C-alpha cells in the first residue's frame, strides 16, 4: 500500500512530464465519468429515455400542455435521464424551450417557489428581476409570462425535483401552475420527479383533476444490465490520447475481472443490497480510486475492498471501540431489557451492575461517577439514547434510556471483541 501511494505522489509530482502520466490521465477520465451523472445513461438504449423524449418533444412541437411524473427509487437516474433529454431538445429547438428548475428541498414553500420561478424566467428572457416583488406580483408575472410564451410559441418546461415535497400544505404552486396551463394560449410542460411511487395520490382533488396522469417508472437495472453498465463505465476509449496498447490491455483486464467467478459473487452480493445505479457508481468510484498506479490496471482486490468498505456495520464497529466498562453497562442494560423492566435509567443500570458484581465478583467494579462517564460515552456513541425528549429537567442519572443495538448485534460484537471478559459472554448467553 505505501508503495502504491508513493507512486501516486510521484505521479502527481510528475504529472506534466512523468512516465505514468497516462495512468493518471486514465484515472482522471474514469473518475470524471463516474462523477458525471449523465454518462452512465448516455449510450444506453433506455426505454425511458426515448419515451420521455417523445413526450416532451411532441408537446413542444405540437405546442400543447403536458404534465408528467417520473417515479422511481432514489439514485435510479430520473433527473440524469431528464437532463439528457432536455440537453437534446435544447439543441433541437434552441429558441422554443425555456427551462425552469425547482427543487422541493429548496422551494417547498410557495413564496420562495414563485420567487425562484420569476427569477429564472427573468434570467431566461433578459428581464430585470426585482427581489422586492411580492408573492402576488411573482405569481401574476408567471401567468403573464406563460401567456406571452404561448403567443410566441415557446414552451416552458417546469422541472419539479422532489415533487412530493411540493404536495405538502396547500399546494398553491401546483394549482396555479396547472391552472395556468388550462388556458388555450399557454404552452408548458410540468415534469415532477419523485421517489414516492404514490406521489400523484398526494395531490388535492383540484390539482389532480388538472394533472394529466402520465407516469414513467424508473427501475434499477437488472444484474445483467448492471454488468453491462460496469463494462461500459470501465472501458477506456481507444482513441483519446491514451497510449493504444495501454488502453487495450486495460480493457482486456477489466473484461477478465468481469468474467471472473469470484468477482461476480462480490458484485451480485453488493447489488442484492441495493441495485440502483447510484449505488453501483459508488462501488465503481471506490474501486477505481484504489487502482494500482504503478501498473495502472484494476484488479479484483480493488473491487473486494470497495465492497467491504462501503458496506459497513456501524454498530459492530462501534462496539469494538467500547471500553470494557462500557461493555459491562451495555450488557447490564440488555439484561434489564430481557427482564422487561418498563423503565430503564442509569440508576437501574447501576443496580444491575452491582448485582452482577455481587454474584460474580468481577474485577471490573468501578465507582459510580466513573460509570456515569462511561454511560455518557455510550450516549455519545449512540449505542444508547434517551427514550424521551421531555426530561430535560432531570439530570442524566434519572432520564430513561433505551438500547439502540439488538441483542444479536451485541452478542456478535462481544464475540468479536478481542479481550472481552468471559463473564460478559456468559451473562449475555443466559
Amino acid at each position, binding site marked *: *500500500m*505505501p508503495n502504491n*501511494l508513493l507512486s*501516486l505522489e510521484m*505521479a502527481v509530482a*510528475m504529472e*506534466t*512530464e512523468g512516465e505514468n502520466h497516462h495512468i*493518471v490521465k486514465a*484515472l*482522471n477520465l474514469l*473518475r*470524471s465519468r463516474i*462523477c*458525471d*451523472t449523465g454518462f452512465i445513461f448516455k449510450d444506453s438504449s433506455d426505454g425511458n429515455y426515448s419515451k420521455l423524449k417523445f413526450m416532451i418533444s411532441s408537446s413542444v412541437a405540437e405546442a400543447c400542455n403536458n404534465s408528467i411524473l417520473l417515479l422511481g427509487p*432514489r*439514485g435510479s437516474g430520473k*433527473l440524469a435521464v431528464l437532463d439528457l433529454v432536455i440537453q437534446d431538445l435544447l439543441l433541437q429547438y434552441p429558441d422554443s424551450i425555456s427551462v425552469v428548475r425547482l427543487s422541493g*428541498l*429548496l422551494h417547498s414553500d410557495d413564496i*420562495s417557489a414563485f*420567487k425562484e420561478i420569476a427569477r429564472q424566467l427573468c434570467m431566461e428572457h433578459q428581464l430585470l428581476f426585482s427581489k422586492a416583488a411580492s408573492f402576488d406580483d411573482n405569481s401574476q408575472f408567471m401567468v403573464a409570462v406563460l401567456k406571452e410564451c404561448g403567443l410566441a410559441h415557446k414552451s416552458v418546461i417546469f422541472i419539479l425535483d*422532489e415533487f412530493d415535497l411540493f404536495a405538502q400544505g396547500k399546494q398553491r404552486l401546483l394549482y396555479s401552475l396547472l391552472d395556468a396551463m388550462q388556458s388555450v394560449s399557454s404552452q408548458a410542460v410540468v415534469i415532477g420527479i419523485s421517489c414516492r411511487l404514490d406521489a400523484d395520490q398526494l395531490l388535492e382533488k383540484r390539482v389532480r383533476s388538472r394533472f394529466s396522469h402520465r407516469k414513467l417508472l424508473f427501475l434499477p437495472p437488472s444484474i445483467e444490465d448492471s454488468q453491462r453498465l460496469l463494462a461500459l463505465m470501465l472501458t477506456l476509449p481507444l482513441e483519446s490520447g491514451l497510449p493504444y496498447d495501454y488502453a487495450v490491455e486495460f480493457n482486456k483486464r477489466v473484461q477478465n475481472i468481469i468474467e471472473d467467478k469470484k468477482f461476480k459473487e462480490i458484485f451480485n452480493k453488493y447489488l442484492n443490497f441495493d441495485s440502483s445505479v*447510484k449505488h453501483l*457508481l*459508488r462501488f465503481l468510484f*471506490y474501486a477505481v*480510486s*484504489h487502482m494500482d498506479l504503478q501498473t495502472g490496471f484494476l484488479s479484483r482486490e480493488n473491487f473486494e475492498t470497495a465492497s467491504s*468498505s*462501503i458496506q*459497513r456495520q*456501524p*454498530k459492530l*464497529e*462501534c462496539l469494538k*471501540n467500547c*471500553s*470494557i*466498562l462500557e461493555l459491562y453497562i451495555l450488557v447490564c442494560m440488555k439484561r434489564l431489557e430481557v427482564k422487561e423492566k418498563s423503565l430503564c435509567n442509569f440508576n*437501574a443500570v447501576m*443496580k444491575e451492575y452491582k448485582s452482577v458484581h455481587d454474584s460474580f465478583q468481577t474485577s*471490573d467494579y*468501578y465507582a459510580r*461517577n*466513573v460509570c*456515569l*462517564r*462511561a454511560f*455518557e*460515552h455510550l450516549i*455519545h456513541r*449512540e449505542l444508547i439514547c434517551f427514550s424521551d425528549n421531555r426530561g430535560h*429537567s432531570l*439530570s*442524566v*442519572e*434519572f*432520564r430513561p434510556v433505551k438500547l439502540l443495538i439488538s441483542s444479536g448485534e451485541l452478542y456478535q460484537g462481544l464475540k468479536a471483541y478481542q479481550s472481552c471478559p468471559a463473564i460478559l459472554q456468559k451473562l449475555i448467553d443466559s
Partner: protein
Amino acid sequence: MDKEEAPQIPRRTTRSLSSTSTSNTKTASKENNSLESLTINDLLVGGDPINLDDIISSFPGRSTQIHEIVRLLGPLNSPILPMFVYGGASTGKTSIILQLFKHLQRPLVYSSCRTCYNQRILFESVLNQLLLHRKNAANCYTNAKRCERPSDFINFLREALTSVIDNLKVKSEKSISEKNIHGGMGNMIYLVFDNFHLVRDWDKSSTILPLLFNLHDMLKMPEVSLIFISSTSPDTFYSTNMGYVEPIPIYFPDYTEGDMRQILLRNQANQKLYSSFLDVALRPFCRITRQVGELSSALKPLFEKYCEPLSDKGKGVVPNEDMKRRLFNHIKPHIASSLNDVFKVSSPPSSEAESGKETKLKGNLKRSEEIGDLDFHMSTSAKYLLISAFLASRNPATLDASLFDSKGGSDNRKRKRKASEKALEKKEMLEEELLMKGPGTFPMERLIAIFQCIVSVGEDPSDEEEKNNEELGAQCGSGSLMSDVLLQLSTLCNANFIFRGKSCPIEGSTRYRSTISEDLALKVARSLKFPLSKYLYRS
C-alpha cells in the same frame, strides 16, 4: 476543544496543529496582514508545507485512513463523490483532513457545525469564505451575503463557486504555462462540514440534512466536492424522513491500546521511564475509557506519583529491572484508587450543560473535602432555601406534616418503627421510585412552608420540638422575609440548582425541582449545622 475556535484569527487550527506547528511569530505576521483583502490562496490551509510521511508519523495508528483519504481525493483535478468521514471523539478526523489538505495544497472551505450553530450562520460562513470576505471594522463585521433560505443559499453558492472555480482555472493554466512542476492548486474546491452530527439537533434538521447530503447532485458541478466529518456513523442520520444517496464512508476507529501507547509517549521527556510506567498503568485505565484526552489527563497525576521515589522527579533516569519493580510496588496501591477518580478533575464538558455543571460541581466538592467546607459562597438564606428545595424534592408531600409538625411527627415515627413487612415493602418501592424517577416536583407554596419550618429549626437547634410551632407562627406573621426569598429562589433557578418547570396545565402553578445531589445537600447542611438527615424520609 481548540478546533471550535477555528474561524478566529489563525485560520483553522486544530489541537495538534496549534500544539506543534503554529508558532507565535507566524500568528503575529498573520495578524499584521489581516487587513489586506483575501486572495484565493487563503483558501489553502496555512503553515509550512508538510510531506505525507510526516503526517503519517505524527498520527500513530492512522496510516490506513490517511492512505485511504489520499486515494479517494485522487490526483489533481479529478472529481470525487461526497465523502463521509466518521469516528468517535478525538480520533483525529479533523486534524488529518486539514493536514492532508495542507500537504496537497488544495483549496478548501472549512466550516464547523459547532461554531456555525444554525443554518443561517452555516450558509453565511461558507459564502464568506468563498467570496473571500473577511469581517472587520470597515464593514461593520457584516457578512458578505445575508442568506436565510436554502433557496437563496444555493443561488449564492452556485455564483460564488463558479467565480472561485474560474479563478482557480486561470491560476492553474498560468502555473502550467510557467511549467510549474507541482501543478498548483488545481481546479477543485472542497467544502468540508465538520461536526456534522450536530446538524441533526438543529431546528430545521429535516430539511437541512437532505439538502446538504444532496448538495452535490443539486449543484452538478464536478469541480466541487463535499466532505462531511461526523462523530456518529451514517446510520444515525436515517431518522430524517427524506432519503439521499449515501456518501462514501471512511471510518476512523478508536485507537487501540498500542496506538494509545505511542500517542501518550509523544512529548514525554523521559521516554523509557514513561514507557515502563505505561506498562503498569495503561491497561487498567484502558478498561474504563479509550479516549486519548481523558486518558492523558487521568495518567498525569499518577505519573507524578510514580516518579516520587526518584530523586530528580524522574528526569534523565534510565530505569532498570530492579527500579521498575520498586516503582511498581510503589504505584500499585495508587492505581486502584485513582481508577475510581479518573474523571473527577477537569472533566471535559459533556453535551448537556446541566450535567456538565453538576459533575464539575461534584468534582469541586470532592477536592475540597479535606477542608470540609463549601468552596463557593452562598448566603445563609439561599442555603436554607437549597436544603428545603432538596427536602421538598425527596420527601413525599404527604409526610411533610409528620416531619415538620412536632406532634404528628412523633406519632408517625412511632407507628413506623413498628413497621410490618408491608410497610417495609412500601418503603422499598418508594426508594425504587426515587431512584427511577429522580427528584420530585413541588409547588412554591410547599417550598416556602418547608423553608419557614427549617429556618426556625436552624436558628434554634436546642429545643426545636417545643418551640417549633410558635416560631412557625411568628415567621408566617412577618412577611418581610418573603420578597427576599423569592429573589433568592430565582437566583438559585438561574444557577441551575433548582429547576423551574413549565406551569402545570391542570393546577396552573409553576412546579419546581431540585437538581442537586444528596452529597451536596449534606455538605450545605453541614455548613449550616443543620440536621438534614433527620428530615430526610428514608429507612
